[in-house]
């Protein structure tokens, strides 16, 4: 924590607004290439919708595969935003400040991406209006609110709305800042978006109260979203590997694990690409990695509980399923990779401060975590369905087709593309948070030791 150096406001403004006012040279080529990839992906999706789901590798009984895995994965990533912004805000963790914006953005964009998957994986996506909106009330056709698939859009829709508001409220001061530094159409854009932000005490108060209220309101939603996603699986008693009471907290803690790791990946990229070494500092990686150690270990505990109680029932089908998941080719390979990536490689490394403050290592370990967490979802969903049921005539396995892999890659390109596009118009590190943190931190002398300290209001 001792690497802090005083930064003056002019420097802070210039550096943090470089994405908007002084766009780096790599930006345009990168966004163009990503744009082309995104278009290719959308083309593939269009072909799939046109031809039918036969182009995927799905079969019977593996009716759900890579798309649902990826859906769960992206919903999981979206938990980064609220974890970092809301929880750390309410617990007043000072180190969260430079990270909040990026985390909230990740929430919004990954949710937008996640929503695509249940839509395109449906047999008749154009009829999904039946499903999400009860437009056909006149004929008495309602959505079935008993179905977890109705809870999903409700939960995710609420979460998306809340996150977008949360992002916007936190963006207001920076929009005002940008408005004052731009001309022409951009100035008009920021003028409209800034909603007359002038930075007077009343506005600051409202912005702060709004932020706290949204944080507190978002927390239950944050927990509920992934719980509800997990209930898509957990409530189904027919699939032995899914019907487990632990799924809700297990999924939530796993989502935090993968989401916070994704934030670490993003922070490293931001530090490298925009050269924000003064703002995204090793101490932030250090703090996030400490958090990740706790989260990952809790997650591992839940994983073991899930496995132990799977076998606990001593029901033959469930034991057969677990045996397949862990010991049969190719699931055993995936299972080992999953465990290595999600826990056994990164967490022991994070125990060392030298690793925690090494940005390159943090970047790669956080990517490992997300590979592992994607596999975790895959290993829950697919072996669960391709289980050896008592009916030998329906045994089948699953291999994702090229179309599915392309769409998976598309989703990553799409999120990156949105992020970069956003960075052209809005600062990725909140300026006001950054400045506030400069004001609210200080050093005190205790005896002969210089100790970092935080200023808190006393009423």
């Amino acid at each position: 924590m001792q690497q802090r150096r005083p930064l003056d406001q002019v420097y802070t403004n210039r550096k943090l607004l470089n994405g908007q006012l002084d766009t780096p040279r790599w930006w345009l080529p990168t966004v163009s290439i990503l744009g082309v990839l995104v278009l290719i992906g959308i083309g593939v999706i269009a072909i799939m919708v046109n031809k039918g789901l036969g182009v995927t590798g799905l079969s019977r009984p593996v009716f759900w595969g890579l798309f649902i895995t990826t859906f769960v994965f992206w919903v999981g990533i979206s938990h980064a935003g609220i974890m970092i912004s809301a929880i750390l805000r309410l617990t007043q963790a000072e180190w969260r400040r430079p990270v909040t914006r990026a985390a909230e953005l990740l929430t919004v964009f990954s949710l937008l991406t996640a929503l695509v998957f249940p839509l395109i994986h449906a047999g008749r996506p154009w009829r999904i209006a039946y499903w999400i909106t009860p437009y056909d009330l006149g004929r008495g056709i309602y959505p079935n609110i008993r179905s977890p698939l109705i809870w999903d859009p409700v939960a995710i829709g609420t979460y998306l709305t809340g996150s977008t508001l949360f992002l916007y409220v936190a963006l207001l001061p920076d929009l005002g800042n940008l408005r004052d530094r731009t001309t022409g159409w951009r100035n008009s854009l920021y003028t409209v978006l800034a909603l007359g932000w002038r930075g007077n005490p009343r506005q600051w108060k409202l912005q702060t109260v709004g932020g706290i209220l949204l944080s507190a309101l978002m927390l239950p939603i944050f927990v509920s979203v992934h719980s509800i996603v997990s209930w898509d699986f957990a409530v189904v008693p027919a699939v032995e590997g899914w019907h487990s009471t632990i799924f809700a907290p297990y999924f939530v803690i796993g989502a935090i694990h993968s989401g916070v790791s994704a934030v670490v990946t993003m922070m490293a990229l931001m530090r490298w690409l925009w050269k924000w070494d003064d703002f995204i500092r090793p101490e932030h990686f250090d703090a996030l990695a400490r958090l990740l150690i706790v989260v990952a270990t809790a997650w591992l505990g839940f994983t073991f509980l899930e496995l132990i109680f799977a076998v606990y029932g001593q029901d033959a089908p469930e034991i057969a399923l677990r045996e397949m998941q862990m010991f049969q080719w190719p699931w055993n390979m995936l299972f080992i990779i999953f465990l290595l990536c999600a826990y056994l490689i990164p967490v022991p490394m994070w125990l060392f401060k030298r690793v925690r403050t090494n940005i390159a290592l943090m970047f790669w370990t956080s990517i490992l975590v997300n590979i592992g967490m994607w596999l975790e979802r895959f290993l829950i969903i697919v072996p669960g369905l391709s289980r050896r049921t008592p009916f030998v005539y329906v045994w089948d396995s699953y291999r994702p087709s090229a179309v599915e892999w392309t769409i998976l890659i598309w989703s990553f390109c799409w999120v990156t593309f949105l992020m970069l596009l956003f960075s052209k118009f809005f600062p990725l590190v909140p300026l006001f948070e950054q400045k506030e943190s400069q004001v609210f931190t200080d050093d005190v002398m205790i005896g002969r030791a210089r100790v970092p300290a935080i200023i808190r209001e006393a009423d």
Partner: protein
Amino acid sequence: MTTASLKGPNWGMVVDVDKCIGCMACVIACQAENNVPLNTQDRVERGRAISWIRVERYWEGDFPDSKARFIPIMCQHCANAPCEPVCPVFATYHNSEGLNIQVYNRCVGTRYCANGCPYIVRFFNYWEPVWPESLRNHLNPDVTVRSRGIMEKCTFCVHRIRRESRKARSEGRVLLDGEVQTACSTACPTSALNFGNFNDPNSKVSKMKDDQRHYTLLDQFATEPNVIYLAKVDTDRKVGAGEAASHG
């Protein structure tokens, strides 16, 4: 009108496993009756074959003392069906006649019902169905051809139920036992498949279902199926109902 007729039928099937010889006539009859697309080699290999009723063969005992067993499995039309509450659009629901109904028009193809079904008797149309030119005119006009992207499954030949009920109503009488027969039960040469009304205490199936050999498949899911199985009687060995049930 008496209360008995108000109560309506509760359609169900009793499958006497002891009589099943595994001839697959039911499978073919169902395929032809219900406009099920042909199961080409490619479809079978990709695990996308559609067959509303299937006859599973399994072996009991070790070679060479092994015996082939057959069990026909179709939609169990569970009273407490796990596929129904999961459907977000009510495309599958339970009607007042004990049938598990699939509404093709409403289905959006989430395939959640198929995951919920422990008997794995629900089928998804991965492709638009096609038939060779030679079979152009063979389709049953009473049965909808299902487009791609929706689920389908055994309907207990609901079109036959409707046809016979209409006929009986127009003749001003109640349906007689045995008047409605599904395609599979008609085709079964050994009367292993018996279709009828469980609400009629005098029907054949009502009498059969109380046989001491009766069991239901996968009773641990508490699905209360409307398909009752009668256990295989083995002359060499006594096979209790419980033991047979633990197979499925």
